[in-house]
């Protein structure tokens, strides 16, 4: 980190936190604090929705995921635009008409209080844990780059976010997210440019794409109907659709964003902007990872990208064995350079036979290199059982640290910070609102002054911030962060979406039936997660389908139930 990096990083953070605090100085009612005054424009809502979903994990894990497994992950987002259209046409007008503050309020009117409280509780549970992971992701980056203790970094991020979220509530969260999103998109665009710039001069963008494709990194759309493959076109269009419907339609973190719109039209336009932009944006982030992969075909990558752990293991009793593997890895890399030269020669001379031979040789060498990396991870794990066995989250940051020019390292760290702060701010804002509106006000203090609820909402936001920082402390036990967040969401989203769908489309189903259906379906999804190898996107379909089916059966068996 140079002085310029520090200047860019601190300047960006100070500007955003300062802007949030300055905007939050205005005196607000509880309504304005929780719903943002209901006057935000569609572009603020759209950017806020995108910034809420794009956590630091997006910018750390996704390029790493593309490096390891290719760009197939983009299929996860295929259902999202469809969900934006469905929500704009159905749920958004309903919420707007009912003037609810949280999504779960609707369920008490439609069913009963216990159904409202259970769904709100499931939201608090999964979002509280998810927010801990959102703080932890950038914390590991800073700890790795700056050598700060992890708990101190967690504390630093948490306190920054709590400050302006508590100060300004929903409105300030959305307004700061607009600027954070600009920093994030600008930073990644510059990052993409410098990754391309770092490729050898004789390697064009087309060569890099062809190379990545030859090594199976550009399998963007998989139409094979397989349930055990995590990301396919079908799982994206069904499981991904259910995730998006549940996340944007029933998760208060997102519902709060578009309910702050000045009108129904502004809310709808904000969601549809997200539907238009999301898939290309995720594609761009994954493409950065693929270009980093192409770069490391020509520059020797580390044997293990978590270099602090690697150095520690090399200095331990496992050092000799690890050094041997590293030497073999270097030999493999040297052989690969010969195959790469053949590959480029064949590409530029359009010699199809030589090209096919070089591609096959590269694939074989890549398999050998991958096997050596796996062996190294096993040695690391054996030497230090607490070591993370996956290093995908460290791939892009390693590249940034070693190959980005001065100033851009600071900008990339600012991107990570902005992403972490925006996602965490939305989550704390929603957690605080749900706790006050759905629990405190309904079960503890039904009638008090507006100021009382305003203070309660602020206190709850602080409390959730502290809890999220505590969860973040234990997040190091999780391997791949982005998958962990998505799996966690998928376990709870399906049944919750099922309850809302029953509420909208099955008017005969009453409270007791849907409550039992929710409990059984949630248990079924948890058992599926624990006992089967089904891809996690299907949990959403299973949970939602189970609630709808059980509600239909229960309603037929007990038609008079209330």
């Amino acid at each position, binding site marked *: 980190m140079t002085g310029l990096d520090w200047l860019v990083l601190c300047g960006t953070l100070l500007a955003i936190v300062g802007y949030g605090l300055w905007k939050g100085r205005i005196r607000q009612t509880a309504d304005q604090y*929780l719903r943002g005054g209901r006057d935000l424009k569609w572009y603020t809502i759209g950017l806020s929705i995108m910034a809420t979903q794009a956590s630091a994990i997006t910018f750390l894990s996704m390029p790493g995921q593309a490096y390891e497994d290719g760009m197939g992950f983009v299929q996860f987002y*295929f259902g999202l635009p469809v969900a934006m259209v469905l929500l704009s046409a159905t749920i958004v*007008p*309903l919420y707007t008409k009912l003037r609810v503050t949280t999504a779960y309020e609707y369920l008490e009117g439609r069913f009963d209080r216990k159904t409202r409280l259970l769904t709100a509780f499931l939201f608090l549970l999964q979002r509280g844990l998810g927010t801990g992971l959102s703080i932890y992701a950038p914390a590991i980056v800073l700890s790795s780059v700056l050598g700060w203790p992890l708990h101190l970094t967690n504390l630093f991020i948490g306190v920054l976010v709590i400050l302006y979220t508590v100060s300004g509530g929903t409105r300030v969260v959305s307004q700061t997210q607009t600027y954070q999103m600009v920093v994030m998109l600008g930073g990644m665009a510059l990052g993409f440019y410098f990754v391309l710039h770092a490729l050898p001069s004789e390697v064009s963008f087309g060569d890099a794409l*062809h190379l990545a*494709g030859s090594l199976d990194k550009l399998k963007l759309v998989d139409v094979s109907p397989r349930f055990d493959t995590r990301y396919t076109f079908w799982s994206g269009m069904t499981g991904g659709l259910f995730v998006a419907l549940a996340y944007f339609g029933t998760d208060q973190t997102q519902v709060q964003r578009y309910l702050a719109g000045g009108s*129904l039209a502004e809310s709808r336009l904000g969601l549809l902007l997200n539907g*238009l932009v999301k898939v290309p944006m995720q594609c761009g982030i994954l493409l950065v990872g693929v270009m980093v992969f192409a770069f490391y075909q020509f520059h020797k990558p580390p044997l293990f990208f978590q270099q602090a752990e690697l150095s520690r293991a090399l200095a331990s009793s496992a050092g000799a064995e690890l050094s041997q593997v590293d030497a073999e890895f270097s030999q493999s890399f040297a052989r690969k350079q010969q195959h790469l030269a053949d590959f480029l020669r064949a590409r530029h001379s359009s010699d199809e036979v030589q090209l096919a031979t070089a591609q096959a040789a590269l694939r074989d060498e890549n398999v050998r290199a991958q096997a050596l990396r796996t062996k190294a991870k096993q040695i690391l794990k054996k030497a230090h059982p607490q070591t993370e066995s996956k290093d995908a989250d460290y791939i892009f940051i390693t590249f940034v640290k070693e190959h980005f020019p001065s100033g851009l390292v600071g900008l990339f760290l600012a991107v990570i910070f902005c992403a972490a702060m925006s996602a965490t701010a939305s989550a704390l804002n929603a957690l605080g609102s749900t706790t006050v509106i759905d629990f405190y*006000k309904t079960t503890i203090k039904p009638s008090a002054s507006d100021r009382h609820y305003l203070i309660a909402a602020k206190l709850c936001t602080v409390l959730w911030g502290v809890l999220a920082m505590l969860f973040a402390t234990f997040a190091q036990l999780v391997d791949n962060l982005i998958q962990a967040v998505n799996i966690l969401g998928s376990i709870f989203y399906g049944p919750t979406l099922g309850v809302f769908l029953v509420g909208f489309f099955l008017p005969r189903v009453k409270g007791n039936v849907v409550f039992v259906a929710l409990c059984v379906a949630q248990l079924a999804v948890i058992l599926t997660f624990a006992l089967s190898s089904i891809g996690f996107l299907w949990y959403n379909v299973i949970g939602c389908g189970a609630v709808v089916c059980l509600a239909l059966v229960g309603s037929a068996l007990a038609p008079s139930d209330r």
Partner: protein
Amino acid sequence: MTRAASSEPATSSEPAASSEEEAPPIFGSWNRLYALVLGSLAVTVTLLYALSKVYS
């Protein structure tokens, strides 16, 4: 106390009245805007599929 901070549950499960709807800018109707979003998804997926085939 404002309505928003109230815990009074919503009582209706009917979709919003169309009188609350206003047309989107430029496109004139929401259905046209929905078609744009879904159409752009179809084009993007087709392009990505073609890319997969070209570079595999």
